[in-house]
C-alpha cells in the first residue's frame, strides 16, 4: 500500500465535554487510507467508530469536543482548517452517507433541489446545470423513473430509494473520499445487498476511496479491502479484511467472530459469548480496555498498553496476540 495516501490520521483523540465529566470517545487512533481503497471500521456500539468518522469532516460541535492529533485529508491539515475552507471541503473532497437518510435530508426541499444546491455550491454552476447533474446522479444510482423522482420529497420515497438518493447527493460533486456511516443498517436484507453492490460499483467508476463504518462482520467482508477493528475508542487490530476476519489476532476480534451467529453453526452447542460488556469511557483507559473480558488476561495487561505489534501488513494491540494466535 505505497499508493498515494488520501487520509492520514495520527494519534487522534476525541473527548466530549459532558456535564458529568469528559467522555474519552476516541483514543490514540491512527490509520491511513490509500486512493481507491475501502477501509471498514468495525466495532460494536460505543466503540468510537462513528466518532472517528465524523472527526474526518469535523462534524462534532466545536464547543463540546476536544480533538487532538493530526488528520490530513488529501495532504491538507484538517484540524487547522478555517470554517470557509472546511465548508468547501465537505461534500467536495469528502462526502458522507448516513444511516438514516430521512434525518439527513431536509424534509421541505425536493431531492432534486438538494442535490442541485450541493453542485451549485461547490462548482458554481447554474441551477439548470445542477438539476441536470442531479438527474444524472439519480439515474446512476438506479432510481427508477429518475426524472419524476427529482421533484419528490424525501418522505415520498421508500427506505431503499432514500438511501440511493442520499448516495446520489453524496457523490454529486465526485468526492475523492466517501465516508459511509452504517449506510445499510436500516435497510432490509434484499435491499442492503443491492446498495452494497451499488456502492462498490460506483467506487470503481469514480475511483474514490471509502471508509465504511459497520457493526456487521458480513457487511465489512462484502465491501472492504482493509478493516480496522475498534474497541473502547481504540483500533485494536488492523489489516487486510480477508486476513483479519479469517485469522484474527486480537482476542476481542476472535471473540466477536465466534459470537456472531453464522450459517453452519452447531445448533445444539451454546454460542461462545464474550462475558461482560464494554467499559464506560468516562475514564482515560491506559491499559488494555478488553482485559476484564479477556481469557488471556495477565497482570501485564493492566500496564499501559504498548505500541501496536506489526507484521505482514497487519497490526494488533495485544501483548498476547502472538500466543493467542497459536491457541
Amino acid at each position, binding site marked *: 500500500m505505497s499508493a498515494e495516501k488520501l487520509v492520514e490520521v495520527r494519534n487522534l483523540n476525541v473527548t466530549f465535554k459532558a456535564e458529568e465529566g469528559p467522555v474519552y470517545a476516541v483514543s490514540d487512533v491512527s490509520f491511513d487510507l490509500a486512493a481507491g481503497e475501502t477501509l471498514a471500521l468495525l466495532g460494536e456500539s460505543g466503540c468510537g467508530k462513528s466518532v472517528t468518522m465524523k472527526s474526518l469532516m469535523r462534524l462534532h460541535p466545536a464547543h463540546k469536543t476536544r480533538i487532538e492529533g493530526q488528520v490530513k485529508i488529501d495532504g491538507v491539515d484538517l484540524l487547522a482548517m478555517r470554517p470557509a475552507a472546511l465548508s468547501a471541503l465537505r461534500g467536495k473532497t469528502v462526502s458522507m452517507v448516513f444511516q438514516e437518510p430521512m434525518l439527513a435530508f431536509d424534509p421541505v426541499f425536493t431531492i432534486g433541489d438538494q442535490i442541485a444546491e450541493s453542485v451549485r455550491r461547490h462548482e458554481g454552476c447554474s441551477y439548470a446545470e445542477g438539476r441536470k447533474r442531479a438527474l444524472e446522479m439519480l439515474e446512476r444510482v438506479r432510481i427508477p423513473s429518475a426524472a419524476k423522482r427529482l421533484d419528490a420529497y424525501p418522505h415520498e420515497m421508500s427506505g431503499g430509494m432514500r438511501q440511493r438518493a442520499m448516495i446520489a447527493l453524496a457523490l454529486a460533486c465526485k468526492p475523492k473520499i466517501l465516508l459511509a456511516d452504517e449506510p445499510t443498517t436500516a435497510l432490509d436484507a434484499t435491499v442492503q445487498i443491492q446498495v452494497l453492490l451499488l456502492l462498490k460499483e460506483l467506487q470503481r467508476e469514480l475511483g474514490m476511496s471509502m471508509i465504511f463504518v459497520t*457493526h456487521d462482520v458480513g457487511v465489512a467482508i462484502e465491501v472492504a479491502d482493509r478493516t480496522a477493528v475498534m474497541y473502547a475508542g481504540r483500533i485494536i487490530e488492523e489489516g487486510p479484511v480477508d486476513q483479519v476476519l479469517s485469522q484474527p489476532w486480537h482476542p476481542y476480534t476472535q471473540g466477536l467472530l465466534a459470537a456472531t451467529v453464522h450459517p453452519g453453526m452447531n445448533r445444539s452447542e*451454546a454460542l461462545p459469548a464474550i462475558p461482560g460488556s464494554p467499559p464506560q469511557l468516562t475514564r482515560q483507559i491506559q491499559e488494555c480496555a478488553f482485559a476484564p473480558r479477556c481469557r488471556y488476561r495477565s497482570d501485564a495487561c493492566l500496564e499501559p498498553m504498548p505500541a501496536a505489534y506489526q507484521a505482514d501488513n497487519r497490526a494488533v494491540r495485544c501483548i498476547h496476540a502472538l500466543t493467542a494466535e497459536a491457541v
Partner: protein
Amino acid sequence: MSALLRVQDLKKYFPVGKDLLGRPTQVVQAVDGVSFSVEKGRTLGIVGESGCGKSTTARLLMHLIEPDEGRISIRGKEFGRIGGRHPVAELRRQMQMVFQDSYASLNPRLTIEDSIAFGPQIHGVSEREARQQARDLLDKVGLNPNIFIRRYPHELSGGQRQRVNIARALAIKPEIVILDEAVSALDKSVQAQVLNLLADLKKEFGLTYLFISHDLNVVQYISDDVMVMYLGQVVESGPVEQLYQNPSHPYTRALLSSVPSQTPHQRKQHKVLEGDPPNPIAPPSGCRFHPRCELARPICAARQPDNVRVSGAHQAACFALPDSSGYSEYIQLQEVCA
C-alpha cells in the same frame, strides 16, 4: 403430537386515510390469512422484511391489536374477545412477549423488582411471593438480585435490560414466549449471551418460543421450524434444515442469498432482487411477489397460489413448484401454442 398453539386464517386490515364522511379510503393488508401451529417445546422462527406483517402477527396473537378475523387456540381452547371464546387475560397468562426496544418496554419509574413483580400480582399472586419470585428470576437470567433489584431501567445496559424483560415475561409462568426482534438491537457479543440464556431458559421451563427476526443467521441457529412472510402472507414454512437447505419459494431463495457472506472469498457478485418490497396498501394481485420474481408468468398475476407440499412438513406457496396446478400446465400450453 398435537399443536400447543394453533392459529388459523389470521387477518388484520388497517384503514388508512379518511374521506369526507370519515370512511377509510384505503386499507393496509398487514396480515392476510396467516395460519400456522407450534408444537410444545419447539421454536418457530418468523422471518421477513419490514412491513411483511411479522410483528403485527405477534401483536395480534397477544391481542395487543384486535384481529379482524381468525382463530387463536392454545391446547384446543380458543381465545379472544368474541362471545364464546376464553378471555384474553387467560391467554396472556399462557403467552408473553419480549419486544425489541428494551428501554421502551420498561416503566422508567418502576424499579426492576416492581416491574417483574407487577404481572404476577395482577394475576393474583401475593406481593411477598411475587417479590421473592422476582429475585429468583433475576438470578435465573444472570443478574445478581442483590445488585439489580432496586435499580431503575436507565441504570442498566441494553443487554441487562433485555434480561429484565425476559425475566418479566417469565414471571407469570407462561408456556409460550413471543420474542419480537428481542436480540436485534444488541451488540453481537451481548446478543450471543442472550441467545444462550434463551436456550437455557427454554430447557429449564419447558418453554415454546415464537422467534421473530430479520436476521436469517440467528433464526437458523435458534429455530426448529421457520415461516417466511412476504407482504402479510406466509410464502414458505417448514423445518429449519429443510427450508434453509432447499428454499423453494423464489422469495425465500432471494432472501437467503442476500445475507452478507461470512467468508471473504465468497463475496456477493450479483444482486438477487431488484427494487424494494412493494407498498402493502395496494399489494400486487395474485402472488404478491410476482412483480419482483424472475419466474413470474401471467398466471402469477391472475391467481393466488395455494400452499404446496415440498416434502414432509415443508410447504411453499408458488405456482412454479413442480406439482402445483396451473403454472406447469400453462407453460406447456404456451409451448404448444408457440
